[in-house]
């Protein structure tokens, strides 16, 4: 019989530790399938900083290290300077990348560091139990914005792709969403392009995934996917913000 589906060698054969309906697992698989298809599992090094995905090394079948909260782009920079022939990626949450780690991500992008960053924007601090993130939407409730985030108190949510796209060293920047099969297919193509930009030595690449956190959003998994479509995408438009060909969203 013809085999139509096989488990990717890129994922370790074990259950993930993520909550039901959390899209970390989808993002993991897209990245690992891509590396598998590119034949690069054995020549890739990943960095997972603190956040729900700090133990991504249990699931992603590549050499990996953990990093302190926010510091993954610096860690990846160090790795890449020793191993210019390897693919190096970071896998970061929005608290990690857009709050405590803003210095590291902006300068890695500005230097045109030849690394790929996968940025999981779930609009909240998952691991610590649902506090407000720099990406939490206006009006969105969190344990530290209990009546909903306001601009007066916390400013407006940060659009990371748009910010980083202003830097010359950032060569490929795309925002995708993990809320539908069609968008998941697009997300996989974005992952591939990010790695290809790195393989060609063109500079820094980043894919932002609009993702879910049913547990801390207080929503059922299906409603969480709907929230991505109805609330997140209007504020965080999908598309390519920067590409080597100069394509814009």
């Amino acid at each position, binding site marked *: 019989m013809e085999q139509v589906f096989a488990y990717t*060698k890129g994922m370790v054969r074990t259950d993930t530790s993520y909550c039901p309906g959390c899209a970390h697992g989808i993002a993991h698989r897209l990245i690992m399938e891509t590396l598998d298809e590119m034949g690069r599992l*054995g020549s890739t090094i990943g960095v997972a900083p603190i956040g729900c995905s700090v133990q991504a090394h249990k699931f992603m079948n590549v050499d990996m290290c953990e*990093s*302190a909260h926010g510091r993954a782009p610096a*860690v990846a920079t160090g*790795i890449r300077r020793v191993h210019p022939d*390897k693919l190096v990626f970071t896998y970061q949450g929005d608290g990690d990348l857009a709050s405590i780690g803003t210095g*590291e991500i902006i300068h890695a992008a500005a230097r045109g560091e030849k690394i790929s960053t996968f940025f999981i924007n779930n609009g909240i601090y998952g691991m610590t139990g649902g506090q407000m993130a720099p990406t939490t939407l206006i009006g969105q409730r969190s344990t530290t914005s209990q009546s909903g985030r306001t601009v007066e108190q916390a400013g407006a949510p940060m659009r990371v792709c748009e910010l980083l796209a202003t830097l010359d060293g950032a060569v490929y920047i795309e925002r995708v969403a993990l809320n539908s099969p069609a968008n998941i297919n697009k997300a996989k193509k974005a992952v591939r392009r990010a790695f290809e930009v790195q393989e060609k030595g063109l500079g820094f690449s980043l894919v932002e995934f609009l993702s879910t956190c049913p547990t801390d959003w207080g929503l059922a998994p299906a409603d969480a996917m709907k929230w991505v479509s109805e609330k997140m995408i209007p504020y965080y438009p999908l598309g390519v913000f920067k590409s080597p060909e100069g394509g814009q969203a």
Partner: protein
Amino acid sequence: MSEKVLMKGNEAFAEAAILGGSRYYFGYPITPQNEIPEYMSRELPKRGGAFLQAESELGAINMAYGASASGGRVFITSSSPGIALMQEGLSFLSSAEVPLVVLAVCRGGPGIGGIHPGQADYLQVTRGGGNGDYKVPVFAPSSIQEAVDLIYESVELSDYWQNPFLVFTDGILAQMMEPVVLPDPRPEMKNEDIKKHKPWAITGYGDDDSKRAVVKSLRMVPDDLEKHVEKLFEKYARAEKELVRVETLGVEDADIVFVAFGTVARITKEAIELLADRGIKAGLIRPISLWPFPYGAFDLITDKTKVVISAELSMGQLIQDVKIGVGKRFPIGLINRTGGIIPTSLEIANRAESILKAGS
């Protein structure tokens, strides 16, 4: 070994790290150690390595972590406020058992303090400084030659112990010039050879994913974390036996025994001569390793001694270890300056003499 050459401290330190085998340097400018990143930016690209000016000391220590976790030999340097920013990283590297050599050129504090020499980061460097149960071996040279030798040696020691190593100095050694003999270059570690020496390094596993490597610190299960910390402390217990370094001078029959390290120890040696001219016998315990601290050297002090004096550029930090070393056997005195002021040998001699007289 080289002929004797006259070198500025900072440049000699940088060259010692390269000769020791370090090929990666990440740093952020801070006085009084700026000649080191300057030297590295010139030299490392020529010598098969890489230099990068980081966006901050947070960036620098984490770049260093990545480079070393993937098998490179890394040397970084900074000064007090910068070393403070690196503490989370040092704790992380110690937990993840990743090697690194750090040169800390201590200046006056607290806060932004000043740029002149100090030792007020003594407790920070010897007691951890970051979070959690961990230790970082610390060497404190008192000449440029000794700094060169300790940095060179630390490159190998940190690989062997899989732990960060600190060399702790100040702006005097960093900025002055002295004749030094440079050691022979260690053979370079090529990327193909990393796994032979560092099987734990994350280099990409090639064709065989059974060789997959993970470098990590997190242990969510308390049992696992306790076991991990206990394993670290077995290593530290061995280090406490094997890494103690100390110089002693005329301790056995001294009226006064000084305890001093680094620059202050050098000045104290002159003070000891001044006291000898006045008929007062003084000796010196000079800890070269600040952790592990040479408590054993205090057993050399005989009952003839009337006072043990901690001489330091801080408000009574070294004295805490002196108290542990002395126990209740002798009275303890303190001679100190802070804020970037260096006492002269005459000041040390005079103050020591008054402490001695006040006690008798």
